[in-house]
């Protein structure tokens, strides 16, 4: 494992082109199989009974009538998922979230589940389960949850990170603080200060495919599961831990995944499906309805953020401070901490302080969503930066360029930056034609920057060379948006063969070593590194085989353009051997030819993007349309530029939805009122313009081809870019996301 991952500039042939993806034909003909597209012999249908209450003690569950119903093969409650978490609080939270144990903590929290021969019986059985609830007072709003008289969700929680420690329990799990310098001294030096409070509402990843799995537990202790997930190996580990299965006896196969965006990095109903199968002795298929997806999976934090930034008249920021309150759902987590780390990461600040406050509320357990926690912090900070630029009368782009973090800057979250790319994205924005295009009546322009930590992680690939010289590549990172194409290109590049001769596929957990999930923008970054390593190992093998075929020392063989060349005067009559030539003789030169790689792909490097947005606002109704949008982001090296553009465009669209329309709406009763795509309003095709992209390629020093993760950063700037554009158009600073028409109209009225 002595793979050298450092960047090595060279001419690339396959990388940078735009071939058709290997899984493409299956996906345009309807043949690709997603989570719900798989069946097992004798499979049962599962349905989950969910709490209608936001907060309630479960006094009694009687499943006897449901169990007695003909066709019902198993009913499970928390009693069928005993606590094996051994003091691991985060694992316990997953368990309790899968199936409420003593209290239902949000509307939609699972309390029981049935497996039956068909959906009609399962539906009937749900109605026969009796649950006695003691309804408790609930709280869903982040600020109200912090109030002294708020109902406390978990009496064992004493706020961490505060000295002295409070003596009473509350919904505040922890404070965490970052920064350096002396902010009070910094503000004293400022000529102008902007201080504001911002709010963002809870959003959902909104993947079009609901969670789905087929689980099968056998009497011999083995089990298998087909599931849509961003990480089959992680699902395997968590499910094995929660059910007490041996990890290697649980085989998890990831289906084609119909979107995840972080939401399918977490386990939801999969342990329940396994528990039902274990109890029923038959395979169980569990597919969530869209209503269940909204009520019981995935959302982000809702937030409330105070920001204060000061600057001198010449445009130098002297101090910056933020307090970030994030909901984590009903269990402790670290979402505010992440937000606090990212908030000012774009800037070079002498004095900076951020405090993250984790707040428990009666809402679903918060899940990662594309650069989790960063968009809300960026909304608050980039809005305040924009206000401050206006206040001191300096152009918003110039102001950011003047204060942008650069190599050597101490980041607001601690370490000093190496070479980073925010400056180039800002310079590109300043030079972009979009920035100087004329605006019409009721139109406004905004821009914003965004930061995200990318990462790499544990990765493993197998590259097998077939007898005809074609190559199969098995990877362990789930393909969420074209990575099989990118990785096939990488293998072709490294081996010197045609893209069409490589077929990449995603392996199940029984066929390949452990891989971290496809998250943290790591899929292409880390699996390409492992693919390069595996290809180089395969080339080493092929050189040995060529040496045997030619009967010359392996030292005399050089690999070039997909062929083994004999070098040296004594071999000049030997025609080069292609992969095909070598593969054809593999049986007699030592057997199958393969290259494997197991590595840790660290050094992903942080990522920055700058977005420009134009909107038109109808001042009489508050209706807002995005009329032009540009994304500028560094990709290091775009392996398949079309899919890099796709990541930029998709993240921007999600951010635009978050900015304008998407939000969880709760009633007074704590029940979610918009658990469907009708009223949880993600952008539709007619809502958006074409989304222009500009890919910058500043090589990542820690990847052989310079590749950088590109998946997440594009969702970070849009909230602020849209908010700044709307504020420019209507002349009022919008501080509450989503910037819905009623909020715009109310702000305009307040100003008049």
């Amino acid at each position, binding site marked *: 494992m002595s793979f050298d991952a450092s960047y090595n500039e060279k001419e690339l042939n396959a990388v940078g082109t735009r071939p058709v993806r290997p899984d493409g034909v299956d996906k345009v003909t309807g043949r690709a199989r997603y989570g719900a597209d798989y069946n097992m012999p004798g499979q049962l249908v599962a349905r989950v009974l969910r709490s209608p209450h936001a907060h309630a003690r479960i006094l009694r569950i009687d499943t006897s009538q449901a169990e007695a119903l003909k066709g019902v093969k198993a009913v499970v409650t928390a009693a069928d998922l005993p606590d094996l978490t051994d003091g691991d609080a985060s694992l316990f939270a997953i368990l309790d979230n899968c199936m409420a144990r003593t209290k239902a903590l949000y509307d939609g929290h699972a309390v029981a589940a049935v497996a039956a021969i068909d959906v009609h019986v399962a539906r009937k059985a749900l109605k026969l389960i009796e649950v006695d609830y003691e309804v408790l007072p609930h709280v869903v709003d982040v600020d109200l949850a912090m109030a002294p008289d708020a109902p406390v969700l978990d009496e064992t929680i004493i706020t961490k990170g505060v000295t002295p420690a409070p003596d009473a329990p509350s919904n505040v799990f922890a404070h965490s603080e970052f920064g350096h310098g002396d902010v009070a001294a910094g503000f004293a030096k400022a000529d102008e200060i902007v201080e504001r409070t911002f709010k963002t509402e809870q959003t959902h990843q909104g993947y079009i495919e609901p969670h789905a799995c087929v689980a099968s537990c056998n009497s011999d202790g083995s089990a298998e599961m087909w599931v849509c997930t961003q990480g089959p190996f992680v699902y395997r580990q968590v499910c094995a831990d929660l059910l007490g299965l041996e990890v290697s006896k649980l085989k998890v196969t990831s289906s084609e995944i119909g979107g995840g965006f*972080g939401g399918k990095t977490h386990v939801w109903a999969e342990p329940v499906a396994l528990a039902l199968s274990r109890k029923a002795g038959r395979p169980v298929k569990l597919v969530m309805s869209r209503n269940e997806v909204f009520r019981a999976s995935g959302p982000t934090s809702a937030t409330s953020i105070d920001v204060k930034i000061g600057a001198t008249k010449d445009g130098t920021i002297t101090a910056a401070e933020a307090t970030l309150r994030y909901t984590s759902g009903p269990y402790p987590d670290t979402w505010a901490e992440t937000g606090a780390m990212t908030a000012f990461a774009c800037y070079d600040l002498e004095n900076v302080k951020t405090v993250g406050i984790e707040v428990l509320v009666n809402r679903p357990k918060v899940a990662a969503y594309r650069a989790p926690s960063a968009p809300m912090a960026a909304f608050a900070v980039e809005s305040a930066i924009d206000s401050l630029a206006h206040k001191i009368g300096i152009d918003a782009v110039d102001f950011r360029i003047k204060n942008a973090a650069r190599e050597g800057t101490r980041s607001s979250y*601690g370490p000093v930056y190496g070479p980073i790319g925010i400056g180039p994205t800002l310079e590109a924005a300043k030079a972009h034609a979009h920035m100087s295009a004329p605006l019409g009546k009721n139109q406004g322009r905004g821009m914003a920057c965004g930061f995200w930590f990318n*990462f790499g*992680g544990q990765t493993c690939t197998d590259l097998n060379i077939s007898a005809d010289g074609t190559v199969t590549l098995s990877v362990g990172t789930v393909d969420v948006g074209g990575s099989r194409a990118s990785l096939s290109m990488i293998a072709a590049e490294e081996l010197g063969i045609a893209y069409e001769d490589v077929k990449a596929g995603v392996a199940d957990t029984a066929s390949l070593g452990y891989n971290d999930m496809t998250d943290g923008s790591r899929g292409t970054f880390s699996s390409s590194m492992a693919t390069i390593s595996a290809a180089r190992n395969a080339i080493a093998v092929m050189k040995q085989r060529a040496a045997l075929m030619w009967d010359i020392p392996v030292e005399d063989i050089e690999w070039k353009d997909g062929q083994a060349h004999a070098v040296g005067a004594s071999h000049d009559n030997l025609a080069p051997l292609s992969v095909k030539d070598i593969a054809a003789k593999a049986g007699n030169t030592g057997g199958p030819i393969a290259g494997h790689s197991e590595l840790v792909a660290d050094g992903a490097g942080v990522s920055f993007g700058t977005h420009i947005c134009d909107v038109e606002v109808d001042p009489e109704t508050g209706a807002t349309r995005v009329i032009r949008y540009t994304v500028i982001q560094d990709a290091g090296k775009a392996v398949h530029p079309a899919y890099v553009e796709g990541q930029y465009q998709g993240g921007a669209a999600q951010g635009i939805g978050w900015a304008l329309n998407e939000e969880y709406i709760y009633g007074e009763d704590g029940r979610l009122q918009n658990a469907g795509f009708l009223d949880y309003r993600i952008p539709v095709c007619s809502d958006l313009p074409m989304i222009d992209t500009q890919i910058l390629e500043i090589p990542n020093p820690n990847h052989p081809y310079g590749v950088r993760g590109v998946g997440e950063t594009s969702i970070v700037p849009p909230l602020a870019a849209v908010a700044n554009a709307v504020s420019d158009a209507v002349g009022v600073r919008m501080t509450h996301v989503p910037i819905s028409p009623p909020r715009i109209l109310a702000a305009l009225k307040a100003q008049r």
Partner: protein
Amino acid sequence: MVQVTLWAGLRPLAEDQEHVTIEAATIRELLSKLQLRYPALEQPFRNDVAVAINGTIYRDDWSQGIPEDAEVFLMRRIPGG
């Protein structure tokens, strides 16, 4: 010798130290020596820690060498989406 900065959440587990000076050539050595000195760090070191060396964040590669005079930060591992 390297000077290590601990994130705020770790400090109560390390006698409220923000900076700790320690002799270590790799991340592995650094973490094991820190844990020896402050046993309460064992829990967060299990799953929660990442190490930034001169600005580059390492989550898993504990064999990574630490250059002389490097700036070293212990950070919480970040979730991804």
